[in-house]
């Protein structure tokens, strides 16, 4: 993990509000593992006292790229960045995706910027796998051709049917799973909205497969210090009873094993030991 002043090599609109930002980075770029992220200092303004986390889309000798969508004030401020401007990064941060298991078939499932977060998985895996990508419309389907160029099979679904199959990505995934020939066991790598991640974990859990998901959480420090980004994960207590603990998405994550995640509605409620109804000033 390092802090680096990078220089913008290019910055352009891809489609549907997504921009590709390519940075000259000699220190952070070579260290990046698939699924890791960088914490980017948006152009300082009174309104953005925090950095913003972005998955690394591409990383090669001396350059690093992110693919981002404008959704709020920080990303809006980023739009004004020009070639030659300086951008300060902290990274690479977090635990990324593990290597694909030797005998498994990598199945990538993405929504939104998930395609960017998963690209390095495909690029750095020898086995050619399959990618399922979904979105509301054609504009949400990013970099499908980048995966095809790597020799991967890309299946697309959009809710409005403007490209690929009409419907949710889980629909085309399920259709494929139903017809899947025997052979390599699928191993899942997913990044996208929570609903999608949950759907993947359900399928993975039901079949006893391995699956890895990248969680998106609003972050404070990105360094594991502020405890803002926590996610419930399974844990056994001293007596072997199943319980939960907080994991920091910025440090233990953003990638977690499906089997470790405690989804909020499954009955493992937090037993509070601080009084929630009073104003809990730190």
């Amino acid at each position, binding site marked *: 993990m390092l802090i680096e002043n990078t220089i913008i090599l290019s910055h352009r609109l891809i489609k549907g509000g997504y921009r590709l930002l390519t940075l000259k980075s000699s220190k952070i770029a070579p260290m990046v593992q698939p699924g890791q992220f960088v914490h980017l200092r948006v152009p300082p303004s009174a309104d953005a*006292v925090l950095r913003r986390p972005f998955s690394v889309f591409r990383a090669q000798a001396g350059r690093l790229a992110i693919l981002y969508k404008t959704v709020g004030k920080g990303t809006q401020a980023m739009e004004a960045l020009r070639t030659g401007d300086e951008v300060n990064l902290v990274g690479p941060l977090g635990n990324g995706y593990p290597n694909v298991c030797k005998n498994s078939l990598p199945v990538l499932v993405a929504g939104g910027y998930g395609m960017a977060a998963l690209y390095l998985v495909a690029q750095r895996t020898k086995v050619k796998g399959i990618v399922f990508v979904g979105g509301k419309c054609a504009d949400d389907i990013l970099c499908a051709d980048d995966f095809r160029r790597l020799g991967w099979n890309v299946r697309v679904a959009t809710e409005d049917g403007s490209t690929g199959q009409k419907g949710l990505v889980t629909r085309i995934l399920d259709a494929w799973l139903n017809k899947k020939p025997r052979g390599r066991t699928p191993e899942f790598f997913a990044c996208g909205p929570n609903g999608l991640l949950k759907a993947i974990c359900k399928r993975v859990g039901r079949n006893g497969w391995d699956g890895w998901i990248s969680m998106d959480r609003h972050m404070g420090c990105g360094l594991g210090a502020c405890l803002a980004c926590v996610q419930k994960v399974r844990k056994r207590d001293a007596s072997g009873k199943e319980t939960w603990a907080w994991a920091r998405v910025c440090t233990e994550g953003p990638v977690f094993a499906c089997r470790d995640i405690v989804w909020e509605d499954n009955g493992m409620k937090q037993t509070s030991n*601080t*009084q929630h109804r009073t104003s809990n000033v730190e």
Partner: protein
Amino acid sequence: MPMKPDLSIRIGGLVMQNPVMTASGTFGFGPEFARLVDLNRLGAIVVKGISLKPAQGNPTPRLVEVPGGLLNAIGLQNPGFEGFVRDYLPFLRQYQAPVIVNIWGHTIEEYAAIAERFSEVPGVHGLELNISCPNIKHGGIAFGTDKKMARRVIAAVRARTRLPLIPKLSPNVPAIAEFARIAEACGADAVSLINSFPAMAIDIETRRPILANITGGLTGPAIHTIALKMVWEAARAVKIPVIGMGGITSAKEALAFIIAGASAVAVGTANFSEPRCTLAVIKGIEAYLVRHHLASVRALVGTLETGSAS
């Protein structure tokens, strides 16, 4: 070549090589920033609030950015006394920077007990007493906003520890000077201020609070000038050192605190956007002292001129 100014300051028996510390809760329990910041260069490392038993903290979301700052309601999540001593303190002992542990409890007895336990542990150089957290036993009255309770908790802790003791004052009071005086009268070695301001944010589309805890504490640039006034008031009221914090993003705010009467300062929220902010503040203070021909930072403390400028 101008002489290197002396940045050292003293809090009770604790000597710090410079007046810049980390604000509790913004710098973790020790190792989190160590790959980006040389901890040996800090005046002191103040760790996140520790309680006797581990605490899970609040549900999420716990943090939201607001104009000029942050709201947080982490809920004092921490590994507890034993967890901290076992998992973090050995790491911190490798560094020469003094370690100040921020402590809290639900009852006066819990405060006193954890203070006593930390007094027996090598590698802890001071205690910051967070008296702005909710007090469950006493029906939600915060220790830090009730003078009688503040007196009782500080006195109880003082009786059980000889470590430098620094009550951390809540800004949520009409006259902060009175709380500083109470701390001094109870034998505190310094006071630190301020903690965050109770505040909230609402998502108008869903009509729900953004923080799961509904309310949180406001920190960052937005609170700096309020903190400055409070530090000025507290410093005039007591002889013990005052540690100023609230919205420091550069040496400029830190110097303002010092001129207002603070002997030391702490950097909080700014660590998130600029992990090396503490180091930049140290450098900036040094450069200022050189530029103003001051031999030591102590010579700057409380030098605010309030008479009419001639």
